[in-house]
Each structure stands twice: as C-alpha cells, then as structure tokens.
C-alpha cells in the first residue's frame, strides 16, 4: 500500500527572530484594520500593503538575489506567510506572484524575461494572475479551448479565461492554452504563456460574488499577440508545468488558515470562565488546527528538501478546506452561554462573512472531489 509521508518538521534554528520581526511589523501595519477585513485572509487586497511588505524583503524571499529575492530557505518563507495569514494581513495583491508565478519564471524563463518581470514582482509592484479555468473547462482542465497559433516572431492567442482571481487588478497572466489541437493524448499540446494584460485585444470584466465582492473576473483574448520569449518553458510541456505549479498552490498554510481569524475572534471574546460545551468546542477546533499545521509543515519540509509530495498536499488541501468550512458552523452552533450573540460584534460580523465566503474554499485550487480522485489514484484504485 502507498505510504503517506508526514514526518514531523523541525524548524530551522533562527525562525523565532524572524517571527518576532514579522509580528512587530504587522502589529503596526494592521493596527487600524477591521476584524471582518482581516477575515478575508489571503483574499484581502491592498497593493499598498504588498509594497510595504516587499520593502521588508518578505516578497519573493526564496528567489535569487540577482532578481530581487533574498535566497532565503523555503521554510523561512513558510514562517513569514503563516504569520501573515494568522494576523489576517491583506496579501492578495502579490500572493500569486509570490507563491507560484515567480517560481515558475525562475524555473522556466530566459534570463532576459526573468529580469523583465521578477525584480518588479519582488518589489511588490507587479501582480500576476492564473489563467487556467474557462467557461466550459473547470475540473476538466485539459479540455480548455483557448489557443495560440504561431505567427512571425511569436504567437496569437484567442479564447477566454474565467474565475481568474484578481483578473482586473493584475498586470500579467500566466495562461495555459492549446498550442496543438486536442488529439488522443488529452494532456499533450498544452503550453503556458506570459500575457501582458495591457496588450491590444485583451478585455477584462470583474465579476461580483454573492457578497458583492469583486475578487475574480473573466478575460477575453481577441487575436492577442505575444512574442516568442513569452512562451514559458517548452511548447507542449504545459500540463506537467501546471501540475508542479499546482503542487505549490495546494500545499501552503493558506489551505487550512482561511477561517483562522474567526477562531482568533472567538478566543478573544471568551475568558477562562467558559462553559463546558464552549471549552470543548475550543479544544476540538484546536486539535484539528494543530494537526493540520503539523501536516502542512511536514510538506513544507519535504518541498524544501526537493521532493514533491503532491499526494500529501492534496490530502492537506482537502482536510484543510473541510476544517475551514466546519469552523464557522461550529462557532455558529455554539453561540449562547459563553459565546456572545450580539450581532454588532466583530465576532458576529466575522462569522457572517465566513459562513458566506467558505463554500468557495473547497472549489478554488481544485475541488474536493478532484482532490479525492487524486488520492484514490495514489491508493491504486484508479
């Protein structure tokens, strides 16, 4: 039987100092921020905050120094991002560039292309979005229709992308498109392109979610020209590149901390004279939280060692999303004796927000059913 590796991680020695530095920066920066805004977690957008964070050297930490990074270890980066999430910092603007796009460029792009984008990303000035999903292709990503055909000196792209996070407030998209028509091998003929969203022929609409927030959108490509050097990696390698990108995307602490601010608000509203049922709820949430953090840290450690535990990452993402979704329900169910029911409170406002926002947590980045399918394949059932 497949063995899942979740060996415990020992943090590098100097992380406590790094944590302190990040915390004192956040104490100052977030002092005026409302509880419900913190609850947006990594969907909270502030270009201004991203630039300030970059000045501290905490954007693109692992990238080469020559490209504006600081060649820090992946575990030091892990410590910074878990602190950002626990505090509820508005990290959305640079999140995708920092988490995956920058690493993709460092891995696959030419030096000239790297110089053109990565230093600006590390300064927190250039933001990226991910163009995978389309109107008729969600879970079945390989069925995408957006295509690129060769022309003199480059490629011309036609089609559209949907549900693109930050579509309307990013400069660049890394898009997965067809470069050869779909044949028998569904995963062949796909390639990734770097697309400047200010190019001619690009049209972007933001989409309001059911809370009225505009965090994602749709993008149309009408004969958009990109030069040869904007092909990322090798032509036809898009599928495998996207999969290693998804491993980065699925394993981080944001996959179990999206509702953490509600727990923090709950704990702040309680004193140690708490009724038994609430004390138990706190214990249960803590046990899940602690376990997920151990799992997520274990994966971070394995990634830092150069292995790619993508099966384990799928497990953490699925368990993490279930946890993030159950948390608001546990809090709501427990309101009464010790948990205040006052609807004007920070706790209540945070709860309302997360009850409504959390259904998306098991959709974005790959649905629950797709992740369980990956795990089943790992068990040898497919």
């Amino acid at each position: 039987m497949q063995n899942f590796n979740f060996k415990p991680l020992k943090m590098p020695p100097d992380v406590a100092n790094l944590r302190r530095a990040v915390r004192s920066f956040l104490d100052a920066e977030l002092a005026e921020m409302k509880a419900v805004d913190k609850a947006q977690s990594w969907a909270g957008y502030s270009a201004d905050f991203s630039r300030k964070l970059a000045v501290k050297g905490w954007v693109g930490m692992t990238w080469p120094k020559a490209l504006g990074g600081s060649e820090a270890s992946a575990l030091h980066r892990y410590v910074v991002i878990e602190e950002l999430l626990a505090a509820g910092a508005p990290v959305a603007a640079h999140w995708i560039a920092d988490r995956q796009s920058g690493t993709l460029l460092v891995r696959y792009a030419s030096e000239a292309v790297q110089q053109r984008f990565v230093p600006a990303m590390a300064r927190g000035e250039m933001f990226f979005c991910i163009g995978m999903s389309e109107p008729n292709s969600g879970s079945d990503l390989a069925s995408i229709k957006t295509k690129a055909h060769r022309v003199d000196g480059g490629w011309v792209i036609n089609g559209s992308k949907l549900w693109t996070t930050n579509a309307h407030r990013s400069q660049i998209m890394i898009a997965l498109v067809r470069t050869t028509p779909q044949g028998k091998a569904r995963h062949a003929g796909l390639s990734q392109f770097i697309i400047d969203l200010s190019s001619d022929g690009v049209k972007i609409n933001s989409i309001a979610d059911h809370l009225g927030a505009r965090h994602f959108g749709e993008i149309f490509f009408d004969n958009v020209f990109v030069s040869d050097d904007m092909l990322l990696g090798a032509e036809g390698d898009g599928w495998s590149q996207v999969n290693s990108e998804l491993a980065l995307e699925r394993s981080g602490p944001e996959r179990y901390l999206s509702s953490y601010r509600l727990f923090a608000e709950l704990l702040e509203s309680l004193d140690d004279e708490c009724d038994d049922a609430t004390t138990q709820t706190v214990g249960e949430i803590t046990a899940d939280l602690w376990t997920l953090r151990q799992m997520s840290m274990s994966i971070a450690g394995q990634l830092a060692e150069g292995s790619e535990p993508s099966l384990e990452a799928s497990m953490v993402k699925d368990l993490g999303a279930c946890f993030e979704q159950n948390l608001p329900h546990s809090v709501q169910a427990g309101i009464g004796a010790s948990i205040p029911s006052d609807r004007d409170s920070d706790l209540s406002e945070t709860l309302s927000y997360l009850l409504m926002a959390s259904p998306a947590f098991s959709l974005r980045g790959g649905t629950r059913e797709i992740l369980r399918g990956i795990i089943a394949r790992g068990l040898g059932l497919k």
Partner: protein
Amino acid sequence: MTQQQQLLEETVSGLFAEMVAPMGRELDIDSDWKTLTQLGIHNIFVSEEEGGFAGSWQDARIVFYHAGRNALALPICETIVAKKLLLDAKIKIPSGPLTLATAVDSRLEPCADGDGYAFSGSLKAVAWGRISSAIVTACQHDDNDYLLVLSSADGVSSGGRANEAGEPRDNLDFNGAKVLAVSQLDDAEKELWGKAALMRTAQMSGALDAALEMSVAHVKGREQFGRPLAKFQAIQQQLAMLAEECAAVNCAAQAAALAEDFGNSRFEIAAAKLRANRSVGSSTSIAHQVHGAIGVTGEYNLHRFTQRLWAWRSEFGNDRFWAEDLGRQVLAVKDGGLWAHMTALSDKHAEQ
C-alpha cells in the same frame, strides 16, 4: 527517519507480523512474550549498558504503531511506557510484563514496621492487569504526588470486563499492599496519563492504517456489476477520506512523540489523542461499509482493528476528556494568544 529508526521499523514490523500469523491465534504470555523480550523490544528506553536501545519517544512510537497495525495482543506498549516512567523516576524496574493505571479512592501510608509504604485503592479497567507482573500508578500523600509500582499479585480482582477487542481490562483492589517502590513526582498522575495517551494515539494510527490497507485490498479484489469495487467513484471518494484520516492521525502521533522528546508536551498530546479519537467514528464506518457483509464476520480480520479503535478511543482520555483539557489550556493562554503559543511550541523543536 534516522537509519536506526528504519532498522527498528523493519525489525518490529517483520517480527510482529510473524508473531500474529495466522491472525487470530491467541498469543501466549510465556512463549510469545519471550520472543519479544529476547529482542529487547520492551527495553526501548533502557540504556545501552543495560541492554536497551536508549531510545526516544519517536523510537517508541514506531513500536506502538506496529503493535496497533498488527493488533498485537500483548502488553508490550504498556510495558515500554511503564518502564519509561520508572526509569525517569529512578525506580528499580520489576521483571515481566508491566502495565499502568490510575487509581481511585487511593491512599499511601508508611508501613507500620517503618519499612516502605503501603497502598490502598481501586484500579479500574487495568489493561492486561491479570497477566501483568506489576502496575505503575500514581497517588497523593501529604500534598505531594508520588509515582509508585505495585505487585499485581497483591491486587484483589473485583471484576472488570474485557474491552471491545477482548483485551483484558481488570478491576483490582489493593488494601494496605506494600508498594514495590515509590518516588515523589510532581503531577505524577498527569504524567502517566499523558504518556499512556500518546501510546494509544500511535497504536490507533497503526490500526487505522491496517483498516485502510484491508479496505484497499478488498475493493480491488471484489467485483460487482462486472468490475472491481475500486472502480466505482463512490468507493474511491470514501477511501480517499479514510486515507486522509489515517494520514492526519499518523502525523499527529509523530508530532506528539517529537514534542514529548522535548518535554512538557501536554498540549501536543491532548491535540493528538483528540484528533485520533475524532477520526474513529467516520474511519471505522467507511472501512466496514466498503467491505460489505464479509467485514462483520468473525472469520475476517477487519474487526481486530475496528474493535481496537472503538476501545482505544475511550482509553486514557475520550473525546470529552481531551477536548476539555485542551480547551482549558487554550483559554488559559495569555500573551499573544493561541497562535503565539502554538508557534512557540514548534519553534522550541528547531534544529539546534
């Protein structure tokens, strides 16, 4: 895992699998116990000079895990933990299988002849009580906490019903029994209970993995509607959830063992045992469901694992016990709250 741990893992997984074969064979407290002790499995924590492994909790976890994974029906895990408690308290270790339990209505008094102490009290549902040679327990005396060791033979059996898996759980009453040895230890009962909970957590993780392994094998082999059950998406999704539970409990057990090696791991053990307990309901239900009727027969071995999971969930702290314990710990955290507390705990283990 270190090389030494890999070696230990290979040894115990092979040995335990061999010992329990054919599964369901009744293990013998003389000959089978001898097989275990000849290899020194019970001496994980004992120093190398005295013939042991000088091992850590992370090493011991490997033994606990494989004992659970093989449903090994002997008190090897209890003996290992009991020995560790005695070693830490610098108490001489009695020979034979040992166990550990907490006491109710207990009293510790100096013996009338001035030589040593006498213990009175009831020990309920002592794991393997009848077949153990000695029992480690805790007691208060003059506002101090003591760890002590009793000869099992001094206990008067007052019933006790075996647990769901048929493992002996005996009630033993002691009335002025002379203790074999005693040592003052702050929070002795808490220490004993926590270490035992860590032991059960690791055993549960082994039993969960065994249930998953059996389930995967079964659905690959069994055909309905002209294809293996494994090919049905409903089955795949169920087993993916079971695998996630196995992974979570395994990770929790490993992390708690690491924490215990750094001392004062009440938080981690509470979280790990609670996480393990909370997975029992859904996990055993999935394992049985995908098996169909064959899984509930006496002949088929799935019950060896699911019964243990049902039993161990209540032992050394059920959900309610640890949820309240952990909840109180969290609510008592002052500076910086839970996040600062949790990260400080793991940063403490930073590579030196």
